[in-house]
């Protein structure tokens, strides 16, 4: 029936400390990917301050949206839908994007599609890998999440393993703080580990009983802190590169061993990684090597698509749009939205600062 229509989706993402907007064409082609990063602001506090994040989102969101359209060479009328992260994340931060996106969709008379933040991270893999299609296993690792997900189909997920305590990214932040590297921990530990010996210190691999795919990082974090304290007390000098490299080796092994095991047991031929920690160079190398060894195809997004961005939201939003999902003017932000779930109706506002 005629030539294939191009679907252009504006994605909006404000779940944490990046104000982002992007436009994709037919899901996988990124026409623009605009980010206003608040890292410089939150660094002054040693971590993300929710109230400040919310205020900055509101200040920057229009500029970000307009730049995403002008970089894509489009205007509002050429969009087919607006996709927005509705959760999980910081409630006050999410509400800025959700409120703006809802009003925008209404104003231009186009459908609104809510996107789960983690579904967005997983979808980031589609952008540079035209051959990647479900089913595949995805290891999601970020500041707030550590999950092993079986992606059955677009928008259809089964979480088979997750962290029982800290997210992997949290462990990075805490270790970075303990050795004086500061925030954000992920990239700083990664850089500090360059030239370090990953076998210098043997940290625990976070074994847990029960579900073989679950993770635990609080024990590892404590082991690193204990090691630092013991060295301080005995006056022993700590090699920060060795410590960071050894810590990364422990995190990577815990993550990769479970991901590979899941692929083998489920006879899944493809493994993808996603989330901010997926830009960690030690983890990327490790997954790549083990995938090669086990005959599993390995997919990963570029670093710019690993950290929070709106291109991934516009990409995931495209598949939600195709599946017929439409959200209305009463869409709410859901700070604890489980993957694959709809936001429960009727909730009280949280985080009502005054």
């Amino acid at each position, binding site marked *: 029936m005629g030539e294939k229509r191009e679907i252009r989706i504006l994605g909006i993402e404000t779940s944490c400390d990046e*104000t982002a907007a992007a436009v994709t064409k037919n899901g996988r082609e*990124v026409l*623009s*990917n605009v*980010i*206003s*990063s608040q890292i*410089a602001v939150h660094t*002054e*506090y040693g971590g993300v*301050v929710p*109230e*400040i994040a*919310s*205020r900055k989102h*509101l*200040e*920057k*969101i*229009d*500029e*970000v949206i307009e*730049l995403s359209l002008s970089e894509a060479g489009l205007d*509002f009328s050429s969009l087919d839908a607006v996709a927005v992260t509705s959760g999980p994340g910081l409630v*006050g931060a999410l*509400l800025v994007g959700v*409120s*703006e*996106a*809802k*009003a*925008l*969709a*209404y*104003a231009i008379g186009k459908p609104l599609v809510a996107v789960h933040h983690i579904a967005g991270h997983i979808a980031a893999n589609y*952008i540079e890998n035209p051959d990647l299609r479900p089913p595949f296993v995805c290891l999601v690792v970020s500041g707030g999440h550590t999950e092993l997900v079986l992606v059955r189909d677009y928008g259809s997920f089964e979480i088979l393993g997750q962290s029982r305590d800290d997210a992997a990214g949290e462990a990075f932040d805490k270790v970075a703080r303990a050795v*004086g590297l*500061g*925030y954000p921990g992920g*990239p700083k530990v990664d850089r500090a580990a360059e030239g370090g010996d990953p076998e210098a210190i043997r940290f625990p691999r976070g074994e847990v009983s029960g579900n073989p795919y679950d993770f635990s990082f609080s024990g590892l974090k404590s082991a690193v802190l204990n090691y630092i304290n013991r060295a301080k007390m005995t006056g022993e000098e700590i090699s920060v590169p060795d410590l960071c490299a050894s810590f990364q080796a422990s995190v990577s092994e815990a993550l990769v061993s479970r991901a590979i095991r899941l692929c083998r047991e489920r006879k899944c031929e493809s493994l993808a990684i996603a989330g901010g920690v997926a830009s960690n160079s030690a983890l990327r190398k490790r997954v790549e090597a083990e995938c090669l060894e086990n005959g599993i195809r390995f997919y990963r997004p*570029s*670093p*710019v*698509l*690993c*950290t929070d961005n709106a291109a991934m939201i516009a990409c995931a939003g495209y598949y939600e749009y195709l599946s017929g999902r439409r959200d*209305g*003017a*009463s*869409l*709410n*932000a859901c700070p604890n939205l489980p993957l694959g779930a709809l936001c429960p109706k*009727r*909730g*009280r*506002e949280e*985080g*009502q*600062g*005054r």
Partner: protein
Amino acid sequence: MLTLGIEASGRSAGAALLRDGRLLSEYSLNVGLTHSETLLPLIEALLKASGVSLSDLDLIAVSAGPGSFTGLRIGAATAKGLALPGGIPLLPVSTLEGLMQNVSEFPGYVHPILDARRSQVYTASYLHGEKVLPEEAVSIESLLKKIRSFPGKQLFLGDGVFPYRELLSECLGEKLVLASPANLLQRASSIAILGERNFSLAKSAEKFRLHYVRKPQAEREREAKGLRDYDLLGEKRGGETKDRLLPRNYPIDSGGYEN
């Protein structure tokens, strides 16, 4: 001239349409639902029932604080989303001035008070529509001390009346006047009226700013300690850029902004 007024700074969500000084329509909901669930549906219904489309609007006026941080942001982000595509001018209107407008014909002093928690109220004082005390967050006792010498009837309104009604009555006795229930809380129509009056000050969506009065707690604490980032992290501060949040496009082969 057609103005849409939006008010979401308190417990109720409201919207009103004003055409050349005449109120066309006003909706308000205070039913325990969050503003993010009620505000936009309410605006849609208001426009539809009034036979008005967004493109007919000359101005969107928004209650811009002080008030609930989250509520203010839902109101502002909604207004910005509505205004952005068509370039409708946006105007921030003081929430306290909006309350004052509810009782604009009152001949004496008007004191809007909004519960600011931490035993404080957001307040300002007005006489004949002119501000006589600035917007600030203070304790009710401190406000009462400041207005002790003000002669005549003193009208109070806003949600701060609920916790302090008895104290006000004790201190002011016969001088105290409380607004009637219809005028006691924030109203979108008052925001629209003030918006229309100050139309020339309207801004584009990206220049619109809220007026929180209070800084975020983390910022206040840091300032109290006199700490800067390099004190916290033992790092030397890099060269200040003009806008640290400057949005940039990151094409997909750019390798990431960490680099």
